[in-house]
């Protein structure tokens, strides 16, 4: 008996299975619980919580594109920085909510240009391009400020309290999860998983691979820019070196890898322990943060390549196997991580594929 057969066949409205309703319900409960945190705790705990939610949003939006496609995007800092800069530059001219939207649009535009140029050819070029993107945008910003004679740093002040930042980011995280869940169910998500497994097969299936990749990259980058816009007023002062810090791209990738990139909620599992550990490291060993993080990164790549979710799933699979049932040979022969096959089959109705 395979795991696939165990899934409830009953489907409620909108083509959402009972099992998915349960997941949605659990997610909603977690969301409400998380939203209540500022009411009971404040100060340091709330600060750490804000970091956690910010990184959760960044890592999950990173995963939207890089998870299914296996294209490692190292450009989070570029889009995050753009969001910050759009906000900082326009704060005295237009209302803040407009700027949040403008940040998203700016990020989307840059992502579209980068995507159209690099995602049509081999994946390695995309990685290289994304690696230096933050530095490139930073150079342009610095140059622009030099030419227009503005100061290198900009002040951003918006009247927001700490809990309000927290709720904003939490809401955005929820939106990212819903979008990710919706993409996972859609034809687009299915196409991306095929691209991730074998791009040549995807092309032969008649998938417009370049279009699918560019769309997803734009969505993912738009979120990163919006997060930048949401965080900018909290930082108060924005300058190129801080806004386009390549370290951010690094942190986001490491957190997502730690959690596991095959599940939408994977990064969440990575973000929480990592942010806490990061807080400890930066307090205890402020001079060795880069060194220790590099070492952690290598440890994760070699010791737990599939992240926490990968560990959990292989443990789960071993248990079901030990229970006497022989799992279908499908899982063994296909070159996909354990559990991915079931993920592939479940949300898809046969007519979709």
């Amino acid at each position, binding site marked *: 008996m395979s795991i696939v057969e165990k899934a409830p066949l009953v489907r409620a409205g909108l083509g959402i299975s009972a099992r998915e309703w349960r997941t949605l319900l659990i997610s909603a409960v977690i969301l409400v619980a998380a939203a209540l945190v500022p009411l009971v705790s404040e100060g340091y705990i709330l600060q750490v919580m804000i970091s956690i939610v910010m990184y959760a949003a960044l890592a999950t939006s990173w995963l939207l594109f890089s998870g299914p496609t296996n294209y490692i995007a190292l450009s989070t800092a570029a889009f995050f920085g753009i969001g910050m800069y759009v906000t900082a530059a326009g704060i005295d001219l237009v209302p803040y909510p407009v700027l949040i939207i403008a940040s998203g649009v700016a990020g989307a535009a840059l992502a579209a240009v980068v995507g159209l140029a690099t995602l049509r*050819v081999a994946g*390695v070029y995309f990685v290289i391009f994304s690696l230096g993107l933050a530095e*490139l945008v930073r150079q342009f910003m610095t140059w622009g400020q030099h030419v227009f004679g503005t100061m290198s740093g900009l002040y951003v002040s918006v009247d927001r309290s700490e809990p309000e930042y927290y709720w904003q980011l939490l809401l955005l995280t929820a939106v990212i999860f819903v979008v990710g869940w919706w993409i996972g169910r859609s034809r687009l998500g299915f196409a991306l998983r095929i691209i991730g497994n074998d791009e040549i097969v995807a092309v032969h299936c008649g998938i417009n691979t370049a279009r699918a990749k560019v769309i997803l990259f734009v969505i993912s980058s738009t979120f990163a820019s919006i997060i930048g816009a949401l965080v900018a007023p909290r930082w108060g002062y924005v300058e190129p070196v801080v806004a386009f810090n390549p370290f951010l791209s690094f942190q986001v990738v490491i957190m997502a890898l730690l959690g596991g990139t095959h599940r939408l909620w994977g990064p969440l599992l990575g973000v929480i322990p990592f942010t806490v550990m990061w807080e400890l490291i930066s307090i205890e060993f402020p001079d*060795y943060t880069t060194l220790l*993080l590099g070492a952690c990164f290598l440890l994760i790549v070699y010791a737990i390549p599939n992240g926490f979710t990968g560990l959990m799933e292989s443990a789960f699979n071993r248990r079901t196997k030990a229970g006497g049932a022989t799992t279908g040979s499908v899982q063994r022969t296909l070159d996909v991580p354990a559990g991915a096959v079931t993920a592939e089959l479940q949300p898809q109705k046969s007519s979709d594929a």
Partner: protein
Amino acid sequence: MDILIIGLLLGGTYALMAMGLQLQYGVARIMNLANGEVLIAGAFGAFWFFAGTHASPLWSLLFVVPLAFALNWAIYRVLIAPLVRRAKSQGKLDVDSILATFGLSFLFIGVMVAFFGAQYTDYSYLSEPIFIFGERYGLNRVVAFVASAIICIGLYLWLHKTRAGLALRAVSVNPSAAGLVSINVMRTSALAFALGGAVTAAGGVLLSMYLTFDASYGVVFTLKALIIVILGGVGDIRGTIIAAFILGLAETAVATLIDPGLTLAAAYILFMLVLLIRPEGLFGRRTA
């Protein structure tokens, strides 16, 4: 004229560092994102040597190059070889090696910050003028160019005139076919990777003679080297050298005519053009 000569001098050193990456990516097939950090490590090696002895930093090549060779050999054996063995396809290996070397690059930055600090570093060696066609140029740039030309020519001759060089080129063309003619592909790849690291570090020593650098500056050089390799065509030494000169000229032109802060933008624009017009590189052959 100014732009032409400075650009060519810069291109000479770029050629050296890109040759290093070319050996690593073109022969060993490892996309090494920590390449720039090896270069910066070489630069720090030269700085440390010069600060201690005040002898010519060129002498530091004597210990920087063997050290970089040994270090990169160890990296290949310990970190990369397991990835090569577990990889089922080149695409998978690319993803794995990108992640591993990306982590490695931050580890290197951390080590260098711990040893040398995070501040900008430079030293003044041979910063006296030399006159070429009546214009003045830094003597250190000319010396760096000559040294890098010597190393490049030596490497080229080694690759084309010796048996080991032939084995390297065979692996570069087709690793599985190279295995069939009893070339130890793993060993040859390790050699190419180590040699690439050594050449890159030598490039770092030469660059440090006229450039200001800091521990986290490596990524820019990784990027430039990658762009040169792609522009010249993967596995094509001749293309790499020409591409290095093109990048050197383009950067110098942008720095002189527009703004010195926009050199990376010049590199990116070149990169964009290559991707849009000739993704296989200047002299690369189109694969079916």
